């Protein structure tokens, strides 16, 4: 008994040593970066790094006066929210068909949708750039919305499909014998029953859209369409060099809402991130 307790104690020590170390690895850079956001620019890049800086709201004032940060935020919100709506409108019927109907080519169509996720943004970057140029959509929030929707459509479809597969068939059969049409069944039974899946898909799509960098960089060439993600790259321009404290502050402004969203769907996160392949 004593030896058993001893061995358990040892493994606990090791466990917390390992887990605690990684927690520090995660947190220390974040805290240090937070401190960058609240220090004067003169204390960011110094011959010797300063770990206990003087508190300052310089970056905040800079953001408020010199940079249309409200506009970046608005662009991000419009483009991301719009793209998620497009995704849900397209993905829910598609997921329903893939989950519930037996039709020729179902596997191939499903896999085609999945495989679009594997395409590197750089591969389609040049053609998409020319496409939007022809359409006169360069430098607009609408172009970003369409691109984000395309990037996430596969993910959203597969996540929702996975949740639809879990709904017992009996629910629909009962409604069908009552004479409900297929679309009514989808609207009144399936969608409410897989709402957690739809929310998970929406949140994950929103995060990926907020983070998207390459397309935004190419499509958005002025502040008209800059989003939070690409606005960061903007703080590097000009004679001022890289304005790190402003970058840090913007990073945290974007971080907080994402953290809240993720905590809300925590239970579904692993399933969402694997496009439904892993049920957590």
């Amino acid at each position, binding site marked *: 008994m004593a030896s058993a307790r001893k061995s358990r104690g040892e493994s606990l020590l090791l466990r917390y040593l390992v*887990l605690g170390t*990684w*927690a520090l690895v*995660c*947190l220390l*850079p*974040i805290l*240090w*970066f937070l401190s960058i956001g609240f220090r004067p620019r003169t204390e*960011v890049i110094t*011959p*010797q*790094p300063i770990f206990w800086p003087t508190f300052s709201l310089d970056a905040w004032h800079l953001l408020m006066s010199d940079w249309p940060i409200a506009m970046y935020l608005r662009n991000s919100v419009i483009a991301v929210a719009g793209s998620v709506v497009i995704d849900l*409108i*397209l993905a829910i*019927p598609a997921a329903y*068909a893939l989950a519930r109907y037996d039709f020729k080519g179902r596997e191939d*169509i499903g*896999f085609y949708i999945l495989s*679009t996720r*594997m395409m590197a*943004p*750089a*591969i*389609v*970057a*040049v*053609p*998409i750039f*020319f*496409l939007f140029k022809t359409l006169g959509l360069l430098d607009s929030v609408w172009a970003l919305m*369409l691109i984000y929707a395309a990037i996430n*459509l596969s993910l959203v*479809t597969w996540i929702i499909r996975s949740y639809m597969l879990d709904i017992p068939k009996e629910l629909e059969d009962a409604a069908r014998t009552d*004479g409900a*049409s297929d679309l009514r069944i989808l609207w009144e039974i399936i969608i409410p029953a897989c709402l957690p899946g739809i929310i998970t898909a929406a949140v994950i799509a929103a*995060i990926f859209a907020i*983070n998207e*960098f*390459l397309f935004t960089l190419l499509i958005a060439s002025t502040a008209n369409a800059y989003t939070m*993600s*690409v606005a*960061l*790259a903007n703080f590097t321009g000009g004679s001022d060099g890289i304005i*790190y404290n402003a*970058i*840090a502050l913007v*990073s945290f402004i974007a*971080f907080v809402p*994402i953290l809240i969203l*993720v905590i809300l769907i925590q239970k579904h*996160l*692993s399933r969402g*991130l*694997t*496009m439904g*392949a*892993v*049920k*957590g």
Partner: protein
Amino acid sequence: MPTDAPSVLAKGVAQAAPIRPTQPRRRRSPALRKAFPYLLVAPAVAYLLVITLYPGLFAIYQSLFVVKFLTWTWAGADNYTTILQDREFWAALGNTAIIGGISLCLQTAIALTLAYFAYRDPLIRGWRIVYLMPMLFMPSAVAFIWKLAFNDGRVISDLLGRLGLIEGNVDWLGSIWLSRMTLIVADVWQWTPFLFIIFVAALQGQDQEIEEAARLDGASWPKIFWNISLPMMRPVIVVAVTLRGIDITTMFTNVFVMTQGTPGGATETMSYFIYRQGFRMFNFGYASAASVLMLILTIIIAQTVVKRAFHSGKS
């Protein structure tokens, strides 16, 4: 109460009667029935075709030209013969494989270790939130964090100096491997949580009774993990690592912000190569040729590795 039943029935019939005229319209013809699922997937597939097939065809077409601003000059397969002899192209391919490969191995190992220690821990919810945080920063922000830590702010050099590991300042962009390492550190820091979250969920979802039985037989936790849990979660590991692997091969943001390919192209990834050829040097035809080659590679990988991964993941 026996009289009730007929009345209900009668009521039902009476109600059904006025609906009846609409009934035939609602019952679709067999052709429409058959087409119905296709109609449901059509909008999504059409949207994806516009955004993938059209660019694919466009890239193939454009790759046959030398594009100088607005003038397209027919070049046939010239772009391809040049690119296959272009050392920068092969270097980019190799860099993507090296940086991505090392990064992926490290992430998988770290995430598995952490998941092993964390999944039976009472504080698992707390660990999960803390470990998730790096993943929730915008990738461009993470790139700036590490650019400042390694290069501009000299924080890492300073910390290592205090530990007595190095002396003076390290020029992280000055050597091939140090420069690659900064990219790997940034990627591992941000994306280990992705694998961790999935591995923990898989471990928690496993049948606890098998573990209990093995425990009663006197097996130690590392042994149980190695001999029972790990083989059981293999399909999950395959899916998660495949998804992460795909994302790593598209690595762009960190390169763009942190190294821009220095020193001497040692950290230039495929995505950055295409970007540089297209949008810095305006060799659009050449960039398209590179895109086509990368697309072919992607399709091969998708058809083999990914298809298998997702089939095993489903079972």
